[in-house]
């Protein structure tokens, strides 16, 4: 593919003899791929400033859709719900996921690989299957659906992401430091909070950011486990898309969300950088 296509029309070995041709071709190709990735985002951004509510023509610049979004009680309530679900689910997952990663690194016990496999399961199982299973379970134990049921379901996958990210961080940490602290008279709790935890922090933060973004973005699981009135942002967006009542407010919202998650991604990358040197 990559090299073969460049070679067409060239004498054999030419492209290896002249790597600049190959590089130039692939650089242009990659540029096009980058543009492709940003095309939908660019379209959303442009139309969020379009005076006309129709996305087919440009009629002038306006901030109107941003102020309309900020005054839209349905979308704002949904945003608040989403943020609350994500914050609660991620906080609980941060604690549970971290201690799980530590426990998995520290102990051997029968059935450990089964345990580990179960923690990976939410990453592999299709969302729709998790959603359906959770819904059936809540119905079976007669738990009324609400925001809390979304939180319970979100903890399942947030937990998995935090555990995986912290585990991979943990595998790069020298266990001797914690042992040294213990040898020097620290209690296990002191050794954990003062030695291990600071080293794990970049992993915990990036795991949490990932889980937060995924929780904010989850539609399918929330859609199945949400009670009446427990509308999260993706549910609100989906219902307005499905009802066809699409307004440019959604464009404005997308741009704000993109800026927010872009900054979070940047933070995650910087935090990841802390640990690597």
């Amino acid at each position, binding site marked *: 593919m990559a090299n073969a296509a460049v070679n067409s029309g060239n004498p054999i070995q030419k492209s290896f003899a002249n790597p600049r041709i190959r590089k130039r071709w692939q650089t242009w190709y990659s540029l096009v791929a980058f543009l492709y990735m940003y095309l939908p985002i660019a379209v959303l951004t442009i139309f969020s400033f379009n005076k006309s509510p129709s996305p087919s023509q440009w009629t002038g610049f306006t901030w109107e859709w941003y102020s309309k979004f900020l005054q839209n009680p349905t979308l704002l309530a949904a945003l608040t719900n989403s943020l609350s679900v994500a914050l609660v689910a991620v906080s609980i997952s941060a604690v549970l996921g971290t201690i799980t990663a530590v426990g998995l690194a520290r102990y051997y016990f*029968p059935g450990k690989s089964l345990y580990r496999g179960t923690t990976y399961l939410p990453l592999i199982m299709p969302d729709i299957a998790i959603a359906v299973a959770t819904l059936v379970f809540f119905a079976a134990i007669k738990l009324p659906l609400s925001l809390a049921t979304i939180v319970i379901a979100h*903890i399942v996958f947030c937990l998995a992401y935090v555990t995986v990210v912290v585990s991979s961080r943990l595998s790069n940490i020298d266990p001797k430091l914690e042992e040294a602290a213990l040898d020097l008279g620290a209690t296990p709790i002191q050794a954990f909070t003062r030695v291990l935890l600071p080293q794990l922090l970049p992993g915990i933060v990036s795991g949490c950011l990932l889980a937060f973004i995924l929780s904010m973005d989850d539609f399918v699981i929330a859609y199945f486990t949400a009670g009446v009135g427990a509308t999260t942002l993706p549910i609100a967006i989906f219902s307005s898309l499905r009802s066809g009542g699409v307004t440019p407010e959604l464009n404005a919202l997308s741009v704000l969300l993109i800026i927010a998650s872009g900054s979070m991604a940047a933070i995650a990358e910087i935090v990841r950088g802390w640990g690597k040197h």
Partner: protein
Amino acid sequence: MTVSNPHDLEPNPDASQRSSNAPKWLEPLVLLFPTGFWLVAFLLIPTLLILVQSFVPFGKTEFGLDNYQQVFKYVGGNFIYLVVVWRSLLYAAIATGFCLVIGFPVAYWLAIIAPKEWRNILLLLFVLPLWTSSLLRSYAWITILRPTGVLNSFLNLIGLSGINVLNKAEGVIIGMIYTYLPYMVLVLYTSLEKLDLRLLEAAADLGANSRQAFWQITVPQVSSGIIAGTALVSITSFSDYINPQLLGGPGSRTIASIIELQFLGASSNRGFGSALSMVLILAVTIVIALLIKYGDKRVVTDG
């Protein structure tokens, strides 16, 4: 999940015992029980529950295979549900193929050609759209693909006639390719990053042309990454709900939409929905089993 006494895995496993009198099994229990409990209670038991429910035919109380037989239901000259399963497989296969073909050169460029100090940033930039709302990304494609949308305005501008792909298979597949391309690039990048370039130089020195070098040196070295990326994208696109729902029409519904209808739709039949979910889980399990056998396991284990 039972937790027994810790074994000697680390050089100093008793260190934590020195200053506390707690029994040995207490610490692992405290560390590992909460997560174990949560996953058993809210993932494993629910999954077993739909497995059981999939064997309970609609309106009955005793077990039977009716729900699975319904998958093969034949109405008016059509296998109405088998067609949907086949369609989901087809969309997933096409989307995965395109992601691989489009993504490979990009991953290659990012991992090998791009300036070293920029690689991480460029990779982050490429996958950044993943961090935005997936619904709004699909919505953006509606804006682009609709009959009076951006694409057709552009085509008219350069003198071509417009095309209509929205609410059809093409629209769904375009959305899927866009959604899953970053995942493919991420996985391929991890694999290509470790490519031993000296082998390529050696091949060139020994007279291999670049086509030979590519197929005989590069591809075998990154084959585990290719398998892992293919597995990841085919699993997620096979069970995709959002793209078929937003960019497709009634003729391009996939298995996830049918499952949703069985639970939240008017024609609800939870037993049948559970059976379809088990089909989905089975398909994913097969792919994962193949991946573990032939692929790069780290992709599964490192997320």
